[in-house]
């Protein structure tokens, strides 16, 4: 079976992002890439158009860098106005019911810094709580993130591996019935890929 995937790419300076350019280049065919900063440079988001896009896909991916432990401003704007009361949530707000949502992230700091005893004091999962709750409130299933961490220091080889893993993940999501509960046992989908390969 075929899951229709929508990647909402949200990067205010995409042309200078080595990591996201590489990731985007590895997105397989059949995936819709919707570049929000390209579409709405003036933050004037076309609500109806976005809602229609969401309805036409099964898996929604927010791909963005992590800024100040959150998303770029335009994605917050998008969440604010596209996920309308009575449409995405609330009584009769069942438009997105059952859809799968996940984030594809880049962080400057390495994975080890996102630990209770690490530099950032909290895990990435903890920082992502608002996204988790927002999507579950909208009756969607929230998957753990796929993250490229330590982006300041990542080598070309490491980036290539990461990008290939991303391609592999998308390909899997596209062509398989998803066991959401199993995915949710992992902290990162990067880990699920690793386990999958080992097994």
């Amino acid at each position: 079976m075929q899951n229709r995937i929508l990647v909402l790419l949200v990067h205010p300076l995409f042309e200078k992002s080595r990591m996201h350019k590489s990731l985007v280049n590895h997105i397989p065919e059949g995936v819709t890439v919707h570049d929000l900063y390209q579409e709405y440079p003036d933050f004037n988001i076309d609500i109806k158009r976005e809602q229609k896009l969401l309805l036409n896909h099964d898996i929604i991916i927010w791909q963005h860098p992590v800024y100040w432990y959150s998303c770029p401003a335009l994605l917050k704007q998008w969440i604010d106005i596209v996920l309308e009361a009575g449409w995405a949530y609330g009584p009769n707000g069942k438009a997105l019911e059952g859809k799968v949502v996940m984030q594809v992230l880049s962080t400057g700091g390495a994975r080890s810094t996102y630990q209770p005893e690490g530099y950032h004091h909290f895990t990435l999962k903890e920082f992502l709580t608002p996204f988790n709750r927002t999507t579950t409130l909208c009756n969607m299933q929230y998957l753990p993130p796929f993250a490229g961490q330590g982006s300041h220091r990542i080598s070309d080889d490491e980036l290539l591996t990461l990008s290939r893993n991303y391609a592999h993940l998308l390909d899997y999501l596209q062509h398989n019935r998803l066991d959401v509960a199993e995915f949710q046992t992992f902290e990162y989908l990067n880990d699920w890929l690793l386990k999958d390969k080992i097994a």
Partner: protein
Amino acid sequence: MSSDFLPQALVYLSAAVVCVPLAKKIGMSSVLGYLISGIIIGPFILGFIGQEGEGIMHVAEFGVVMMLFLIGLELEPKAFWEMRKAIAGFGFSQLIGTTILIFGLFMLLGWEWTMSFSIGLALTMSSTAIVLQTLKEKGLSKSQAGEASFSVLLFQDIAVIPILAILPLLATTSIAPESAHPSLLGGLDPWLQTVIVIGAVASIYGIGTYLVVPLLRMIAKTGLREMFTASSLLLVVAVALLMETVGLSPALGTFVAGVVLANSEFRHELESDIEPFKGLLLGLFFMGVGASINFQLLAESPGQIALIVCAVILIKFAVLFVIGKTFKLKNDQNFMFALGLSQVGEFAFVLLSFTGQLHIINEEWLGKLTAVTAISMMTTPLLLLFNEKVITRFFGTNEVPEKRAADAIDQQHQVIIAGFGHFGSTIGRLLRANGIEATILDNNSDQVELLRRMGFNVYYGDPTRTDLLKSAGIENAKLLIAAFDSPEINGELIKTVKKHYGHVKVLARARNRFDAHEIMEMGVTNIYRETLYTSVHLAIDALQELGFRKYTATRQGQKFITYDEKALERLAGSRSDMKEYAIHARREIEMQEKLLQDDLLLDFSTGDHSWDSNFVKETLMGKK
């Protein structure tokens, strides 16, 4: 007369409808088209009209009367004051220089000095109608040549008033009128005549200011728009009649009436009301000129008339060229200026016929000089064509920028900006700030010289010529930005590019909704209306001043732009109910009406509940 009217109108209108589009098609100005159609229907070719000659002259004269009213109306005192130095400099020297030389010429021919002088004054005049229309068609009104031309014409317009006052004085030295002229002034002392001329002009001014303007204010309160047109026409007719009664030129009278109204607050309203009449009346005037050329006189002494035409044009050209040089006009601009004004203008008809009435010159010479005037008017479009095709190639600004040093690779730019005025230059600067060098195309030589000094890659000339576009590198360009002031030039350019270079993406400037609609029909989708973004910006600020939060107002503005652009597309799409209107203004009003109606039916911002907690509350908890 009344039974004559319909057939005459039929003849005039069909001649115009056939000849003017033809003239435009082969790249001539519409003026030439009207002149030729006048000749064709005139007594010497088809003879449809004016076997008696009277009818045509009446029509032609009313054309002049109406045109002078409009010129007067456009003579804004403020603009006039700002240009006073240019007007005095260019205008005064032209008038004096040309009059003296023509005066000298006719004195040499052994004419009486009064005749020579009055003819000198008459032939000094250039044609406001031809020159202004030509400049507008070429989009050069704002160039140096355009402003200099305007100064000269304005000075002449004003000079007509004292000249008309002086002419009766010249009559004193001539032989007394043989037959009594049927005007009230005919038998009076010339000095008294002069006083009456000045008095009549002054009285129009006084009556206009203290009677007509208050009357217009009263009419404004009735809210009947057509009453404005009616009252201004009434004014013109009344003034013309008054002037005729006292034996003065009706044209002069209406000119003054126009100036009076230019001072009033109704100027723009009157102007836009009369605008549709203007073109037609001017056309009628030029056709009258064409029809009034007396080919019999031409046939009798073709050499003499040709010689006079050449001499007069040469004198006028030489004087203007020297003035242009003195005021440091660039060669291109100077040729345009001097050749453009080299014809004898419509005022000459007025002055000549007045001179004839005063018996300063005889019937035969009146006819000959009228022919000279009309013929000289016909030479202008040809001279300008010659200027464009030949002279500027040799003496003007280079079309193509000079090749850079051999080591620099002559890189073809991806972007061509056509038109580099305020609009285009802003685009160019922003692109340049981002490291994108554009090739620039402009038809204003002053601009071109400046830009080349600043290191821009500028091509100069008529932007609708494919060979120029080609040398500017359109074949390898990605984008063409059509940013000319003149919608006509922009439109022609876009058509040319769409036809021959379909691969180039066109980003087009449009003045307004109407232009945008036209450009949309040429198949361009990226259209930028000057009057949309700026006015929305202003409306946003206005909303803010009235207590709206700036972001709310801004979102409303953004939505409005999207909505308005869609509405225009819809309008363009529904061609079936968009009739073709010959008169643009009518079509524009229709569009406006349709858009406003749609606004009522469809609130463009309904459905925007973003961040609205009341909406959220109602949705989640139900309406109270």
